């Protein structure tokens, strides 16, 4: 074995030091607060004015935050998990949230609490696409259904289940959806416990329960889409979905959507770190030791409710999108390459325009344009939209890689082939193209890995990939460390796997490697 050099020891020591410093801080989640407030004084929202406030993007919390914390600095986050992580790590000091949501967050994460006094009383309604006959009819049916439920006490029963503490009752019975009157498409945000979230790998929550019961009563089949808060109204507008789950009713929104009668009630409350809210219940429980903490955290994030299955499913989706996009994108890149080989100036221009256009468009924007505009009414599944988007994008880059590869093979070989009597096409496909591909394989591999990592934005169009799954877990456990680190490690391993597979392919096709093997066998 080789002896380690002094620099190696230095690097190892530095790594160990970094790990020792950061790991506990990350697992514990958040810095130490310098002073606990005087427990005698009752904390109100006014105490947070002037401090850093987090805002849940795409909700009416923005306007309310401006009203209640006029002197504050505002930071915007997608979804409760990010808000909670920001709160625990001290990036923000408070945020406004819906009371039911905070009730369940507090239950899961005792370090976060909320001021019991409501700032406003709100009614949450389902929102339908406006100015559409079908949706209006559906809205009327839902109102009729809600009225009936209110009357016979069903709504109270649902309320008791989802806003209560007994976790075993929190299941949605999906049976009996006949679909004899068609299928309805609902878009929701599955990081919004207790209204809509993922448990045991299924969509559950108050809103989901109501929706399923409604579908059963009116003979519909149900399909659920999952996007961030901010994307829900655009998703409705695109025509992909008939309605979306609970939203605060605001005048501005009423211009854009058609609201149902109230489905549930609640209010806006101020969330902050427990130790800063005197009225909140103290953390109480002793903090477990470091290793015990890690173990508990691991169990909570991956074992409980079989949450690892979400991760496995997410890996499957991420791999599927990557694989299909690489295949389709490479074929398209090859096609572009063929077009460029023709003498047609127009074909060349079109190809160049295509490449410039796609290289110049952010992937997220392209995805959303495809999903919410171009394929909005086609009813195509989001997964296929993502594959199309990433294929188009990958083709643009791969065709450039291919082109520079072809240009790097000197024209002399082409001429030599022609002079021997090969045709232009034979010369290209037999001699130039294979060399170009072989030479560009390392760059191509890098592009595939970029694509793999790039797919992490598909959550924007309601696909539950690896990243989205880790968001969903974070929304349930309100912990940032494990889900994020594990996600990062999985991406790294997938990238490594791609490297290994392409290395094997390279070995198989490189004539030099082939010869070495042959030579080795002969000897």
């Amino acid at each position, binding site marked *: 074995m080789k002896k380690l050099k002094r620099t190696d020891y230095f690097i190892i020591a530095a790594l160990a030091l970094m790990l020792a410093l950061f790991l506990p801080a990350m697992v514990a989640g958040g810095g130490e607060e310098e002073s606990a407030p005087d427990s005698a004084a009752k904390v109100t929202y006014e105490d947070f004015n002037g401090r850093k406030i987090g805002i849940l993007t795409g909700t009416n919390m923005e306007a309310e935050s401006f009203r209640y914390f006029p002197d504050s600095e505002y930071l915007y986050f997608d979804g409760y998990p990010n808000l909670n992580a920001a709160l625990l790590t001290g990036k923000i000091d408070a945020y406004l949230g819906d009371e039911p949501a905070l009730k369940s967050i507090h239950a899961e994460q005792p370090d976060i609490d909320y001021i019991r006094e409501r700032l406003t009383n709100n009614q949450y309604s389902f929102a339908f696409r406006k100015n559409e006959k079908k949706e209006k009819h559906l809205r009327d049916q839902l109102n009729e259904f809600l009225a009936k439920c209110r009357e016979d006490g069903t709504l109270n029963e649902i309320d008791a289940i989802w806003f209560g503490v007994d976790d075993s009752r929190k299941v949605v019975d999906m049976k009996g959806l006949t679909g004899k009157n068609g299928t309805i498409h609902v878009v929701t945000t599955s990081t919004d416990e207790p209204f809509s979230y993922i448990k045991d790998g299924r969509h559950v929550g108050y809103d989901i329960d109501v929706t399923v019961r409604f579908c059963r009563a009116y003979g519909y089949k149900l399909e659920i889409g999952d996007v961030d808060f901010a994307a829900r109204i655009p998703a409705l507008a695109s025509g992909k979905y008939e309605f979306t789950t609970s939203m605060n009713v605001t005048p501005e929104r009423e211009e854009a959507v058609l609201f149902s009668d109230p489905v549930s009630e609640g209010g806006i409350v101020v969330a902050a770190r427990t130790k800063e809210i005197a009225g909140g219940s103290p953390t109480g429980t002793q903090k477990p030791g470091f290793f015990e903490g890690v173990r508990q955290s691991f169990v909570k994030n991956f074992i409980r409710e079989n949450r690892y299955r979400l991760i496995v499913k997410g890996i499957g989706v991420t791999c599927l999108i990557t694989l299909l996009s690489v295949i389709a994108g490479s074929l398209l890149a090859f096609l572009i390459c063929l077009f460029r080989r023709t003498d047609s100036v127009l074909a060349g221009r079109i190809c160049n325009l295509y490449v410039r256009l796609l290289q110049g468009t952010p992937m997220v924007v392209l995805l959303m344009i495809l999903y919410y505009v171009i394929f909005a009414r086609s009813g195509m599944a989001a997964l296929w939209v993502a594959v199309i988007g990433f294929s188009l994008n990958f083709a643009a880059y791969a065709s450039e890689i291919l082109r520079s590869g072809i240009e790097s093979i000197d024209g002399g070989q082409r*001429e030599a082939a*022609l*002079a*021997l009597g090969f045709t232009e096409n034979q010369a290209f496909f037999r001699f130039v193209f294979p060399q170009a591909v072989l030479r560009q394989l390392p760059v191509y591999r890098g592009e595939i890995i970029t694509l793999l990592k790039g797919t992490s934005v598909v959550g924007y169009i309601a696909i539950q990939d690896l990243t989205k799954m880790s968001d969903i877990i974070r929304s349930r456990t309100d912990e940032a460390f494990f889900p994020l680190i594990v996600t990062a490690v999985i991406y790294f391993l997938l990238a490594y796997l791609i490297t290994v597979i392409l290395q094997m392919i390279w070995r198989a096709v490189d004539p030099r490697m082939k010869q070495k093997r042959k030579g080795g066998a002969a000897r």
Partner: protein
Amino acid sequence: MSLIRIEHLRKEYPGVTPLKYVNAEIGRGDVISVIGPSGTGKSTLLRCLNQLEKPTSGTVWFDGVDITARDCRIDMVRRKMGMVFQSFNLFANLTVLENIMAAPVRLLGMQPQEAREEALRLLRKVGLTEKADSFPDELSGGQKQRVAIARAIAMKPEVILFDEPTSALDPTMVGEVLQVIRGLAREGMTMLIVTHEMKFARDVSNRIFYMDEGGIYEEGTPEQIFGNPAREKTRIFIKRLKQLPVLIENADFDFIGVSSQLENFGKDNMLPRRLVRNIMLVFEEVVMQGIAGREGVFPIHVMTELSETDDSVVMKVDYPGGRFDPVAKGDELSSAIVRKLAVSVKHQYDEGRNRLCIVLR
């Protein structure tokens, strides 16, 4: 009937017309060297023959077929018209053997086993049997070019076009490639060779095309072109090949520049390396050390030329000032070196000019 007939061939590029009007006939068994100053369309002519360059106008007949016709399957014609390039252009992803086998197997439908045996036979012919399984980038320039020649012969062409086959080679590797081409000439292969190797052109060809002014300016046997060219530009070209005039105007002249001119002169005329070194050494000792250090000797005219009668080289040095013989009267060590290297040294002085004549062999 001639194998190739070129009629009124013209090739224009935007802004330049290398071939204005070319007419020529090439018979079976002809070995034709195409010589001339650079930029006179020698390579363009070759590339117009196998249509790697499309002629602007004119006709090329090959074996009685108009190969410039629109409906001509040029790829079929090229099978019978081999080409060897200046930059070798071997297929980098194939082994030496595969380079040679590729076209016979793919285009002529030869059985791989048969093609392999044939390729090995050709490799033996060019002396590279042991490189059969090497890749092109593992070969030296001379070896690559020999493989390229074998690749061309493998198609059993009726003519081979050589486009400056030795220009990209180190001087040490030129010989091995020319040796292979000489062998082909002996076997009666029809060849067109664009080359700057004049001695080789003279030895191997039965006809010489001297190209200038956008066409074949003069053609004839090697004896005519090299010995007694009929036209003015040919004469200047041939003469310049054999003479190198250098003018030295002061003591700070570009010594390194002149040395490399001498070296190139030797290379162009295929002089032995030893002789080239001696010429450079004599120039240094006589002109640089002996004469240029003195007062009133400028300008010095140095004329280096190939002897008309044998393989010797004559260096004539002409300079003003008082009578001074650097070999007889100069630095002893320098004198000793020059006397040892030169076959003869003569000094004359008349009308205020020194004339020194040194013969080397």
